[in-house]
């Protein structure tokens, strides 16, 4: 057998209810490959509530605790406290929430969890809208994207506001570790998960999870699209450790954002001018990230 670049052991089972080509499903598969089995996951309302299959079935070889939509950070603190009180100190406490459950309705609980320095890993899997309820815009939906609540019509050009910078919000809490991860780069993904596993304190992972039905692209393109997201600097891969930024993937010449946008039906309405404006935004954010990295 040829050498595998990621651990062979599976802690996620088939039978889950993710759509064909679901980025969020693959994201969980990698997370557990990196963390192992001594894990308890706080799971709020999100796609994974359903992906995780109904009673009496479960998809993961680790404990999952369902919690209310906006409570992931608080549930993590409760799990950590109980695990410590009951002598289960080696358990890794994970929060696994979507972008809406994190950057919108769960932002307060996330802030609380980071500030009180709960020892746990908060993962925001970002499919850039409320996908479980049928593609409504969230604070993490990028500018220009069509969603069912930001239609393309006479008086609307998709979402008119930029995507919320959740990593910036998290960084302001001085996390023990924070990183962006992309399912299209499994080796980088695994490396960051394993690094996070071995650090104590509040950790945050921002995972890009491309969504074929929500972003309107064919399921077989999920990984290719994820790759393009990073290689066009739309979703740069970087980590923040001890306050220091480090970009973990840099291309000499990034791909134009137009390549990324044109693969997705949610951006199909965009004019060349709108694409150019989008490119300018990406360039500015990339420049800022380079500057943060240069601070050392």
């Amino acid at each position, binding site marked *: 057998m040829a050498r595998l670049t990621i651990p062979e052991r599976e802690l996620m089972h088939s039978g889950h*209810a*993710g*759509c*064909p080509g679901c980025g969020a499903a693959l994201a969980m598969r990698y997370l557990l490959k990196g963390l192992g089995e001594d894990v308890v996951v706080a799971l709020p309302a999100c796609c994974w509530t*359903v992906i995780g299959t109904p009673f009496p079935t479960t998809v993961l070889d680790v404990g999952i605790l369902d919690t209310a939509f906006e409570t992931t950070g608080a549930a993590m603190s409760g799990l950590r406290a109980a695990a410590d009180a009951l002598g289960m100190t080696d358990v890794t406490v994970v929060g696994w929430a979507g972008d809406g459950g994190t950057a919108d309705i769960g932002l307060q609980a996330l802030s609380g969890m980071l500030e009180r320095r709960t020892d746990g890993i908060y993962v925001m899997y970002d499919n850039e809208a409320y996908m*479980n309820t*049928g593609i409504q815009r969230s604070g993490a939906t990028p500018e220009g994207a069509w969603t069912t609540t930001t239609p393309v019509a006479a008086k609307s050009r998709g979402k008119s506001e930029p995507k919320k910078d959740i990593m910036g919000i998290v960084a302001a809490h001085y996390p023990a570790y924070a990183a962006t991860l992309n399912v299209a780069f499994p080796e980088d993904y695994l490396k960051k998960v394993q690094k996070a596993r071995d650090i104590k304190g509040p950790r945050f992972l921002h995972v890009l999870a491309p969504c*074929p*039905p929500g972003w309107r692209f*064919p*399921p*077989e393109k999920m990984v290719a699209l994820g790759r393009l997201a990073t290689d066009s600097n739309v979703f740069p891969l970087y980590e923040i450790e001890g306050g220091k930024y480090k970009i973990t993937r840099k291309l000499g010449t990034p791909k134009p954002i137009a390549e990324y946008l044109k693969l997705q039906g949610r951006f199909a309405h965009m004019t060349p001018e709108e694409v150019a404006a989008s490119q300018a935004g990406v360039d500015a954010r990339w420049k800022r990230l380079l500057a943060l990295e240069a601070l050392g």
Partner: protein
Amino acid sequence: MAAELLAQAAFLEGKHPQSFPFFGVERRGAPVTAFTRIDSAPIGVRTSITAPDIVVVLDPSLIKSINVTAGLKPNGLLLLNSPKDPSAFDAVFRGRVATVDATGIALANGLGTRATPIVNTCLLGALARASGIVRLESVLAAIERHVPAKRDENRLAARAAAEGVLMPMPQAVVA
């Protein structure tokens, strides 16, 4: 989608339709069920349909995993998306079986992709002809009014499916 469009077509004929999905969690590609009742008088029940007159199967591979004819009345109609002759499904249902190559017709009309063909309107066209529960013209009018995109393609597909439906005996009207 197909169930709602059928209700719209029936409404255009002055009938009282009622259409609803099984209230579940939808996942692209995952099996889903939807129901339509059509009557000449207002409908007085709000429950799932357990003994249908007609069962329409959009994805023929489901026959292997799901008992699609559960509760189907013995004199009812089973309409399947399949290029095969209805006689190929004798073992599935003893009553009337009709088939239509909806996937082939949908793709020929540019509806959906190979992985996810959009066969709703094809099956409605075929249903109109095979059952007479609504007229083909009503289906075409409902498409014109209620389908958000590719209306011409959907109308052509529905008409082609009506013409291409395979059934062992001429049209028979169900209840």
